[in-house]
């Protein structure tokens, strides 16, 4: 099993980030995402948390490095080049956090990839004062996200365990031989699993970076109000509370230093 971990802070408020999460496709960094559907969505009456299950269909290829480790026929030409990702999220708007979990649905025996994220509202002392109306905003609200990705390959594991068991039953006395066999076969299986897991890790670094850039594009678009007026009401409320140049506007203005680079990159594509 392998892990990937990353912590990142968005210079946007929690409501903006959580909205952008649901709105993040399509963006210039998500061209591989073909469709997105909401399979299930409800507010838990006990906790008032919003639970959402979505299904994304993405274009994907089995990496060549993994392909050559697979038995013939697996992940081969019959593969459609598309894969399903199941995404579950829970939002707590009162406590200001959102937890997400995305996992692949197929090929989980070869490589199961589970990405978990926790978005957490991060307020400074100044913010709280600003919200109380005691002072003008000095710092904006930020949202921190911790991403962990777990990679797990179980390729060959079922067979191996089955054989070990059989050996133990058939040759209870031959303790000298059995562990050796088990040792070598488990070594090679573990080796293949580790290789597959490592390939997953290296691809994920790139994917996590891209997804952040994608989120920033969406946040930027929300800021400029170009896609939909979803935030218009929110902004007006903030204006009503803080005046036309209140913290909300500043949140957007400080928003994303990535903006320029993002669009340049996009043109290159």
């Amino acid at each position, binding site marked *: 099993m392998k892990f990937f971990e990353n912590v990142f802070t968005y210079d946007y408020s929690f*409501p903006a980030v959580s909205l952008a999460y649901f709105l993040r496709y*399509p963006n210039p960094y998500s061209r591989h995402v073909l469709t997105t559907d*909401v399979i299930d969505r409800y*507010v838990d009456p006990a906790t008032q948390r*919003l639970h959402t299950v979505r299904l994304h269909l993405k274009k994907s290829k089995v990496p060549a490095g993994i392909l050559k480790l697979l038995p013939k026929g697996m992940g081969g030409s019959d593969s459609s080049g598309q894969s*399903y990702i*199941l995404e579950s999220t829970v939002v707590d*708007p009162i406590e200001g956090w959102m937890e997400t979990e995305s996992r692949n649905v197929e090929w989980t025996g070869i490589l199961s990839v589970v990405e978990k994220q926790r978005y957490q509202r991060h307020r400074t002392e100044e913010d709280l004062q600003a919200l109380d109306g005691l002072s003008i905003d000095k710092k904006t609200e930020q949202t921190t996200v911790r991403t962990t990705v777990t990679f797990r390959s179980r390729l060959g594991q079922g067979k191996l365990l089955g054989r070990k068991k059989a050996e133990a039953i058939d040759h209870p006395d031959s303790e000298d031989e059995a562990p050796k066999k088990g040792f070598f076969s488990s070594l090679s299986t573990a080796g293949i699993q580790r290789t597959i897991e490592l390939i997953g890790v290296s691809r994920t670094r790139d994917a996590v970076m891209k997804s952040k850039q994608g989120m920033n594009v969406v946040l930027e678009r929300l800021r400029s109000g170009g896609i939909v007026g*979803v935030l218009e009401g929110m902004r007006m409320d903030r204006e009503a509370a803080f005046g036309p140049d209140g913290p909300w506007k500043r949140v957007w203005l400080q928003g994303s230093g990535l903006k320029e680079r993002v669009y340049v990159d996009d043109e290159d594509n």
Partner: protein
Amino acid sequence: MAASIAPECNDIKDQETLATKMKLPRKYDTCFLKWYSEKYLRGNTSSNDCEELFKKYKTCLNKSLKEKGIDTMLDDARKSSSETDSEFLKKS
């Protein structure tokens, strides 16, 4: 917002706005975003403005998922989700 896997559900899920030549979040998505940003995130968590639209969209979607044979695969994935979690915790 992204297209639905079931093109026939797009009318419910969302709709094209030719004026801007951009795919805008459509019926259900629009409803959800409006509700989410204007009500839910502001603490009005018990409202359910989009319930009817979601039911329609879900009915349409479920039919398509069944036809594509994805429905059982998804059920399994959602069930095994909690199982693998406890397995992960045990082994690590």
